[in-house]
């Protein structure tokens, strides 16, 4: 599918057209940060910030909302229980490559047998328009190491690269190609456009320096080797166990389920909400036994999920190197730094 051009002067029309296809979520300012937000009306197009660096929460929230109704019931008997999946047509606009990878990991996790119907139904109802990045947004990012600088195949329907007064549009899926045909904002890309796109890539290659002292393929093993390292205890001394790192992570998906009652104390809904393995009670069972009582064991669990477990289970990266967890951590705990340190830790552990 040949690439096209979206002139920036057509951008507003393009978004307006997208809004006829479903609710559109796009990056907007949330000073001093950014966030994905649903555009309510055409006036909101002016709020879109295609120059955003990185959002607080990843676009995962549109596949796995922080609160979601799984069932609604009417009294304690299961006869009056209904499950309705809210899967509204949605367009995610301006998703950076690392977040495209994040969406891919989320979908992979929820597709595993037994699959989770609601996440998959929402994925099916969602169109994704990616947006290229030319450089790191901060010192905590390490997408070059995690292989998430470029978009994964088949996630973005359209993928935009900013080449001055226009976007270079790559078409990633059949649905993308239909969008290109149905919306008259595009024109075919010419030689000039291709050259500009090439130059963008060259700049990109120069900007994205690797930040880990080893190849990422060794990450799972290095982690395993550092299982007993005191590193985790040392880092945990600063950790508040506040769950910020997992809440902002594009590849975290742990959740809690609970019943929410109406005032009659009989009818209500069963809800799912994001949970965090960093919270103290996460692995506590009735009766009080807690299988990850120590902050250090929870912190290590997260690092292992990110660098090893999710990858092992889904085949997709459990960390996309977006740096959100580290940037938002009040205690400045950096996953990049931890991943850098384990190489030395592993070497030491094995020397003895």
């Amino acid at each position, binding site marked *: 599918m040949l690439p096209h051009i979206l002139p920036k002067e057509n951008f507003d029309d393009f978004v307006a057209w997208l809004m006829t296809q479903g609710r559109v979520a796009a990056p907007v300012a*949330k*000073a*001093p*940060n950014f*966030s994905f937000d649903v555009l309510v009306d055409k006036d909101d197009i002016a709020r879109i910030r295609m120059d955003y660096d990185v959002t*607080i*929460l990843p676009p995962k929230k549109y596949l796995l909302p*922080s609160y979601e109704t799984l069932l609604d019931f009417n009294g304690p008997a299961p006869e009056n229980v209904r499950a309705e999946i809210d899967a509204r047509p949605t367009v995610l606009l301006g998703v950076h490559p690392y977040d495209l990878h994040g969406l891919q990991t989320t979908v992979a996790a929820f597709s595993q047998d037994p699959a989770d119907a609601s996440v998959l139904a929402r994925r099916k109802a969602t169109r994704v328009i990616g947006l290229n990045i030319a450089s790191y947004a901060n010192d905590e990012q390490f997408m070059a190491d995690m292989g998430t600088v470029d978009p994964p195949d088949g996630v973005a329907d359209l993928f935009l690269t900013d080449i001055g007064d226009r976007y270079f549009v790559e078409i990633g899926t059949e649905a993308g190609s239909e969008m290109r045909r149905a919306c008259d904002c595009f024109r075919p890309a010419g030689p000039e456009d291709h050259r500009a796109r090439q130059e963008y890539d060259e700049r990109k290659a120069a900007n994205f320096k690797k930040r880990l002292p080893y190849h990422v393929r060794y990450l799972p093993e290095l982690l395993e080797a550092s299982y007993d390292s005191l590193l985790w205890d040392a880092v945990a*001394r*600063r*950790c*508040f*166990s*506040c*769950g*910020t790192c997992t*809440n*902002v992570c594009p590849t975290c998906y742990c959740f809690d389920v*609970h019943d929410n*009652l*109406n*005032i*009659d*104390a*009989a009818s209500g809904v069963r809800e799912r909400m*994001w949970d*965090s393995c960093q*919270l*103290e*009670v996460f692995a506590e069972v009735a009766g009080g036994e807690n299988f990850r009582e120590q*902050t250090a064991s929870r912190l290590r669990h997260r690092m292992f999920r990110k660098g090893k477990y999710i990858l092992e289970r889904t085949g997709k990266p459990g960390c996309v190197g977006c740096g959100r967890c580290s940037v*938002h951590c*009040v*205690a400045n705990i950096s996953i990049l730094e931890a991943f850098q340190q384990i190489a030395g830790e592993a070497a030491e552990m094995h020397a003895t």
Partner: protein
Amino acid sequence: MAEKPKLKVSFHDFTSCEGCQLQFLNCEDELLDILGHVEIVQFREAIDDKSDEYDIAFIEGAFTRESDRARLEHIRKCAKVVIAFGACACTGGLNVLKNYRGVKEAMRTVYGDQADWYETSVALPVEAAIKVDYKIHGCPVPKQEILEVVKSVVAGRTPRIPDYPVCVECKLKENACLFHKGQYCLGPIARAGCGAWCPSYGGRCYACRGLISDPNNNAAKDVLEEFGLTVEDIMQEFRLFNGVYDVAQPPDNAHVKSC
């Protein structure tokens, strides 16, 4: 299932601003429904009846004078479920600030030579006098938690009252963190359940809902100190709502400060 008799609910106030009782009345959308399912037998702020027959007693306000003890014990005797309602009742709230000033001196500042006309002592949580079954934290209490507790007690289950930090809810709201704006915040050690109310409106969290049961105080000190705050500054922040606890000790094993 046979129609259960309506639970009887009562409200009692001690030393407080009565905002938490008002917060109950502020559940405008639910109020008439609530009244369909429970019977309010005592609510001095809004009704005349006074009854000693109640199942659930909401106690608002701190315990600040010995002569209130008998009233509290009476409520405990009458009620099946006693709920400490709001920061003043749960932790003594900001009334505790006066403990630090020395109660005698505080009274003298206000009432001068006539200070001895009035009775008062240190401010303490209701728990210092009687056992409480549940605590609805906050200054003021969040509406959703009032409803959660009322509904849970009626349904016979344990109310879900969070024991994790305010940051959790703050991130779910996608607020820009105050630390990012160069300010600071007690969110990482304060008990959630308010929906990160203050940070959502640009204010820092003062931990009005008390601390989580196992806060990492070392981290709190380290981090706040990195923001140029001394231990004394931090103590003052804590004290506004949690003066009853020594900052070094989490609520569970904290000794109650007396002056």
